[in-house]
């Protein structure tokens, strides 16, 4: 059951319908409702509560994407698709933020202006954002304080107008090892910014170090998910209804080409429509373009707000590489948060390398018991028998996983499209992910794998090994598919998140990204959402919607 909240009739027009309640939707709903606008949030997923969460690798208590909702993957248009999941997200109230790891890196100045700094990349959608870091800084600070981020300034930090609201989480053995080794290499490690509380904040308790962040709900509410932070404030405003298990199928428009209502199915499959003065799509970088493509009409034959043909294109995620080390003494990395130290010394793209790309490094462990039993040992280790069993005991608490997180270059051919050959239980077409890595995205991963191996070696492990770089076959960071820009011919939303084609339709989520950043997009998704909510509210008050 949902907590107490105001409800709205589908017979009356509300000010805003927000589609999606995750990292972006939670912020937008909270900001608009506390400003006095009447908001209905349509979320396909159910309510989950701390009592549902389980420290259980077989059932985390969060549920899953509707297994009847089809996805497929192919490397290129024209390839026979593999019918499997390829766009990973969690459909619950609060979205994927409910089970995320909480790495909250700000973007740096360079992420917004890289095209101007470095020049074009032929055959790609490499572009500047229409906004800068300075435009977003105060909203990053809002995320720090209102959502709750632990951290301490680092040597590579972009300028910040206010200190972190609380200190970093206690350093783990992986953090100590990374810090020492990085310093020995002349690098500049610093405490990881994490959306997990190190101290009581906004009425929530700090982390209890149980170790079940990644892929699990936080029963303490120490992890700063939208569910723990924004959704309760939206409901308490008295101007917001979070309507769970409401799967949006279509956005309707009138003869003037304005959005009028949002058509959705409830969990029993009954169809409803919620009229609204304006709609904000926050459904994530896969579901937002899918919804626009599903909302085609004679006036919008390529899909709603898609005169640019950019809806669903320029899909990006982030590369992630792994170098492992095993140590003499116990690390007990399976307790507490995933990451406590990061390295940004290779953040910028270096044209002298001859290819584009940059990233960041952190140290973590990333395994629970079953996952470790299946895949935690070095690739040369036996997979069964007495030696396998003995090694598990000698590796589980002694292993770290140094990660490199890297850029993806936007390509028009990497897409979210509709799969007309498959439909879900509501009759909606399936979602198809088409993705082939740009060669530079593979090369920068190899560069980062070498840096990760180098820093593991500097930790003096008993042994080290790595996971080879592989081509991308699915994405959890769903970015770029309704990109922001000043030119309606080459972008979907303007610098205020308003679609170029429909004046009362806004989009704010990972799909708004113009570049991928270096590996941790959620902080920027939420900064964009705070900014978008402010400008959208201003437009509404000035009757400019």
């Amino acid at each position: 059951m949902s907590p107490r909240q105001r409800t709205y009739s589908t017979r009356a027009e509300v000010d805003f319908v927000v589609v999606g309640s995750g990292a972006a939707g939670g912020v937008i709903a909270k900001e608009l409702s506390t400003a006095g606008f009447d908001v209905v949030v349509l979320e396909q997923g159910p309510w989950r509560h701390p009592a549902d969460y389980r420290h259980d690798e077989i059932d985390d208590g969060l549920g899953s994407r509707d297994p009847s909702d089809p996805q497929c993957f192919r490397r290129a248009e024209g390839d026979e698709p593999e019918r499997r999941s390829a766009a990973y997200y969690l459909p619950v109230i609060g979205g994927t933020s409910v089970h995320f790891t909480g790495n909250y890196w700000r973007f740096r100045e360079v992420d917004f202006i890289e095209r101007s700094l470095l020049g074009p990349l032929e055959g790609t959608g490499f572009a500047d954002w229409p906004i800068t870091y300075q435009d977003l800084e105060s909203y990053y600070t809002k995320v720090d304080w209102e959502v709750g981020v632990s951290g301490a300034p680092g040597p590579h930090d972009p300028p910040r107008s206010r200190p972190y609201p609380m200190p970093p989480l206690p350093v783990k053995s992986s953090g100590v090892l990374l810090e020492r080794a990085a310093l020995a290499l002349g690098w500049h490690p610093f405490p990881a910014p994490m959306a997990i509380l190190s101290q009581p904040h906004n009425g929530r308790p700090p982390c209890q170090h149980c170790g079940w962040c990644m892929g699990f709900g936080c029963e303490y509410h120490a992890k700063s998910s939208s569910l723990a932070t924004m959704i309760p404030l939206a409901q308490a405003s008295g101007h917001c209804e979070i309507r769970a298990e409401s799967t949006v199928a279509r956005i309707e428009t009138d003869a003037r080409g304005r959005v009028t209502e949002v058509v959705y199915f409830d969990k029993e499959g009954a169809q409803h429509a919620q009229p609204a003065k304006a709609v904000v799509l926050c459904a994530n970088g896969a579901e937002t373009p899918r919804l626009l493509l599903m909302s085609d009409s004679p006036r919008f034959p390529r899909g709603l707000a898609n005169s640019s043909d950019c809806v669903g294109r320029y899909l990006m995620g982030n590369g992630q590489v792994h170098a492992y080390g095993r140590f003499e003494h116990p690390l007990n990395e399976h307790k507490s948060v995933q990451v406590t130290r990061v390295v940004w010394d290779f953040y910028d793209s270096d044209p002298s390398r001859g290819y584009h790309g940059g990233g960041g490094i952190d140290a973590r462990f990333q395994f629970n018991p079953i996952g470790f039993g299946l895949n935690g040992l070095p690739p040369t280790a036996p997979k069964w028998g007495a030696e396998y069993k003995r090694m598990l005991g000698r590796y589980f608490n002694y292993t770290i996983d140094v990660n490199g997180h890297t850029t993806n270059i936007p390509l028009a051919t990497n897409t979210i499209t509709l799969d007309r050959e498959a439909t879900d239980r509501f009759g909606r077409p399936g979602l198809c992910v088409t993705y082939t890595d740009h060669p530079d995205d593979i090369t920068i991963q190899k560069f980062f794998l070498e840096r990760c191996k180098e820093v593991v070696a500097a930790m003096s492990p008993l042994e080290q090994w790595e996971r080879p770089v592989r081509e991308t076959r699915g994405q959890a960071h769903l970015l770029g598919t309704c990109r922001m820009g000043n030119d309606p011919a080459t972008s979907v939303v303007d610098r205020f998140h308003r679609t170029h084609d429909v004046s009362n339709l806004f989009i704010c989520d990972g799909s708004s990204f113009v570049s991928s950043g270096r590996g941790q997009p959620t902080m920027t998704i939420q900064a964009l959402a705070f900014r978008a909510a402010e400008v959208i509210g201003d437009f509404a008050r000035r009757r400019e919607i």
Partner: protein
Amino acid sequence: MHDDAVSRRDFLYTSGAALHGAWIAANLPAIRAAAKHARAAAGTSAPFQTLSTAEARDLDAIAALIFPTDDTPGAREAGVIHFMDRALGDFAAESLEAIRAGLVELQATVDAAHPGAGAFADLPLERQAAILTELEQREEPDFFDEVRTLTVQGMFALSSYGGNQHDVGWALLGFDASPVFRPPFGYYDRPEGP
């Protein structure tokens, strides 16, 4: 190795929340019922509900090769076969047909190599090990992967699912399940320094 053909579960368990979620999405629509069922049925003496006795004997033999009993408890002490029996009747039911087909093929392999020797579970350990090695090294080791996945799950899942009895799997790893923990976490972050 068979990079592209890596079993879906192995791939999904490898790294990351998203992958974990996808695995759940792909495989476990009836998972809540499963957990309830497993809790209700936990205990080593319960009769098999999904597997025949012969099937259970062979699967138990494979699990005991994967986690042999030596100076520490193995798959048998963990009750892995009871986890498998429940899982294959419930949240892993989609694997049951493949497991059964694999067991039939396993028997054919045993019959061909060791006529009259009986079932896989009746073979001497070294012969069992030789056959398991052959299964593992196949170009498409689906049966090996499925049984290994179930065995590892049965060794390390919550004991309420019927395996990992008395948390012997967690003890093997040194896994600490406590919901509240205080630093220091490990040797290198102790206040006195490494």
